[in-house]
Every structure is written in structure tokens, then in C-alpha cells.
């Protein structure tokens, strides 16, 4: 019985992988490097799907179904928000402000709009405009971030690593805004 279940699950996984292929290449994220620390005893870690599917967060990417992307997480492991969305709940929209992050250059703050657990919009509320150089940096960084906030969520990212100064402030503020969605 268990083998049949496993077989069915792996078949579904393969199909899901197959169908979601073109979306994963069109997203900005490269194919996920699956690295699990050696002491891990996760039994489901054998295939790519096995390790990603149970990891879908409660904000599971596929819930709102506006695009085909994120279908990889619609397997049996789809969590809370996914099931409420499919049961025909109305699009609950919520706007939350990230906390203000102080940087050497000034304060930075991001606001995001969450619909059905997905970020649909992000707006930079505060940026440091103290001098010419900051304005140049921000002119480039802010538009990027506005679209990236949405992209990052569609790639179903839980955490962001590798930030540096100005962009650290932005990314941390974005992370903080995503955090805010989980604060209550």
C-alpha cells in the first residue's frame, strides 16, 4: 500500500515538474541548488520535488492562480492558504508596512500588498534622498526592488541571503515587510 502511495506521489511529482518546467526557466531564480546539511534525516529528500514540495510555505505560491508559475507546490503538501483559496474565498487584500530600517544613508521602508498570501504589489515608502549620490543609487535601486518584491515571492523565497549595504537595507526592509505579514 505504501509503495503504491509512493508511486502515485512520484508520478504526480514528475507530472508537476514536467508541466511547471517552462515557468521555472522564465523566472529569475536559477534552478534551486538543493543542499541539505548532512545530519538531516529527511526521508523525502531523494528527488527535487520531494525536497521542495513539503517546503512550500503557508503563503504557498500557487494559491491565487493568477499565473501558471508556482504550480510545483500544488502537490499533496499544499498548505493552509492554498486550500482556502481553492474553496472559493474572496480575494482578501491586506496592505502592510515594513519596519523602518536605519542605514548609514538614511531610513528605508517598504510597503507590500498581500492578496491570498501572495505579494501583489510593493511600494517604497521612505528612501534616503540626502545627496546626489544617494539619488543616483536609489533611482536605480527602487524600481528594481518594486518588481523584485513580487518576483521574489513568486519564486517562493522564505529568506534572503547575501545583502550588502544600501541593498541590504532594501532587502532587509523587504524581508521585514514579508515578516510583517507573519507577525500577527
Amino acid at each position: 500500500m505504501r509503495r503504491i502511495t509512493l508511486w502515485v506521489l512520484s508520478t504526480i511529482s514528475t507530472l508537476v515538474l514536467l508541466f511547471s518546467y517552462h515557468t521555472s526557466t522564465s523566472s529569475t531564480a536559477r534552478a534551486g541548488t538543493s543542499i541539505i546539511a548532512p545530519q538531516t534525516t529527511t526521508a523525502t529528500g531523494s528527488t527535487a520535488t520531494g525536497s521542495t514540495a513539503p517546503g512550500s510555505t503557508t503563503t504557498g505560491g500557487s494559491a491565487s492562480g493568477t499565473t501558471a508559475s508556482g504550480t510545483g507546490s500544488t502537490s499533496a503538501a499544499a498548505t493552509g492558504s492554498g486550500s482556502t483559496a481553492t474553496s472559493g474565498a474572496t480575494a482578501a487584500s491586506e496592505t502592510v508596512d515594513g519596519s523602518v530600517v536605519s542605514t548609514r544613508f538614511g531610513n528605508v521602508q517598504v510597503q507590500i500588498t498581500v492578496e491570498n498570501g501572495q505579494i501583489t504589489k510593493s511600494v517604497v515608502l521612505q528612501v534616503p534622498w540626502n545627496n546626489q549620490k544617494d539619488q543616483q543609487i536609489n533611482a536605480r535601486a527602487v524600481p528594481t526592488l518594486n518588481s523584485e518584491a513580487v518576483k521574489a515571492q513568486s519564486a517562493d523565497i522564505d529568506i534572503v541571503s547575501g545583502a550588502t549595504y544600501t541593498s541590504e537595507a532594501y532587502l532587509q526592509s523587504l524581508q521585514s515587510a514579508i515578516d510583517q505579514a507573519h507577525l500577527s
Partner: protein
Amino acid sequence: MTTLEIPVRPHTTTGVTPTLGRKAFVEQVMGMPVSVHIRATEPNRVDIAAAAAAVFAHLRKVDEVLSTWRTDSHLLRLQHGTATTDELHPWLADVTLLCLEAEDRTDGLFSAWRARPAGRTVFDPTGLVKGWAVAAASAHLETVPEIAWSINAGGDIAVGTGRGMHDVAPVWRVGIEDPRVRGQIADVVTLTRGGMATSGAAIRGAHVLDPRTGSAVDRPGSVTVVGPDLLWADVWATAAWVDPDAAQALMAARDPEHHLIRL
């Protein structure tokens, strides 16, 4: 004849993950926003909030002892000769020993000591303290039953589980920022337990010194190290930023459970 019955752990996982809620705690500590994320079936439990508070308290204490910004930190009081060793926190000794070990393990690619032009050697453990502090603070979460946790301290990440989550531990998807395109995610690493640190110059500019030459490492790109523990992932990331090839060879020989991602 007596029969011993060996208790069998009920096998509850056939690919089904329990529905986990998620809760975030964010505070500004050690000069950066630190976020603690908890996944649990009931993330609003009081013991979870208490454990998260303990993590932040731990980091604040580390800042009191080891900050290189606060003139009243134990580290600076020691360096300025305004405190006797009896008044100082034993963490200073722990960190000094770890810095020696890190220098040893990386063949000097990581070093907390640098020579000043005047000839006086300066001890600056900042490159090790963040990873060490977060890894140590996470002990407060490891004892909490039925949770999975992650800590993001300014881009350095530790994830793990509390008690009783071994079979059903969820995966965290960690995006690595593209060092060439601000705000864009260049790679994704899935992690259930372990640490992950990124080092690079990017916008902040060259801030890591090559201990062999004393000059700043200034080139595009970034390096990320994933391993079982944030302390050593962080040390190796710094070493790999100084010399990726040498660090990769040393890591393979001495800490083979670590992985290097170059961007």
C-alpha cells in the same frame, strides 16, 4: 524468560507534512535587523514567543560584550586598557580561541588580527562574532518542542528545528541576492538544518582585507557557503571571498560538509 519490548516510533510520515503556521519576530540588534521565523502548528504559543525573546536577549548581550562600535563594550574596554580581565565576560576568551582556530583551519585566509601601519596589531573579531552569536543564540529555539525555525541576521542565515520535528522538518527556500543586479535573486538554496553566509564587496565596497597582503579584496561577485553550522559557514565564506580556489580546496579537505556557491 523475559521479553524486552523495543518501543517503535510511530511512523507518521508518508510524504504528508502537517499544516504549519508561520510567525515572525523582528528586532534591530547588533546594528542590523534580525528576523526570527517560526513554523509550528500553533505558532502563537507563549513558549515560542519566549524563546524568540531569549534569542534577541542573547544577541543584545553579545553586542554589549563584543561590539566594536560601542566604546563601553568589554572588547573595547579591554583594548583601551580601561578594564581588568576579571571584569570581562568569558565570551571574550571563547571568541579569541575560536578566532585562532578559524585562522588555523583556513590557513590564514581568515584572520581576526591585522597589522596597523604603526606596527601595533589590532584584534577585530567582527568577522566571526555574528555567525558565532546567531549559532549560539539558536540554542534557545532548539529546545522548543514541535517547531522549525530560521534566523536571518543581515543576510547570514541559520535554520533548524526544535524537539520532535525530525521527521517532518520543513524546507526553507533561501534566495541568494545577485551581486551584480541589485535586488534580484540569483540562486535558491533549500535548507532544512544548517547555516548559510554570503560574503562579497558589491555596493558596500571592499571591506574584507586579505590577511596575506593587508589590502582590501575588491572584485565583482559574491561567495556563499552552506554548512551544518553558521559559525563555520561564515568563517569559510570570508575565507572564500579572499581566495575562492584555495578556500574551496581547504574546505574539501577539512570541512567537507560545507558547500561553496560562487556568483
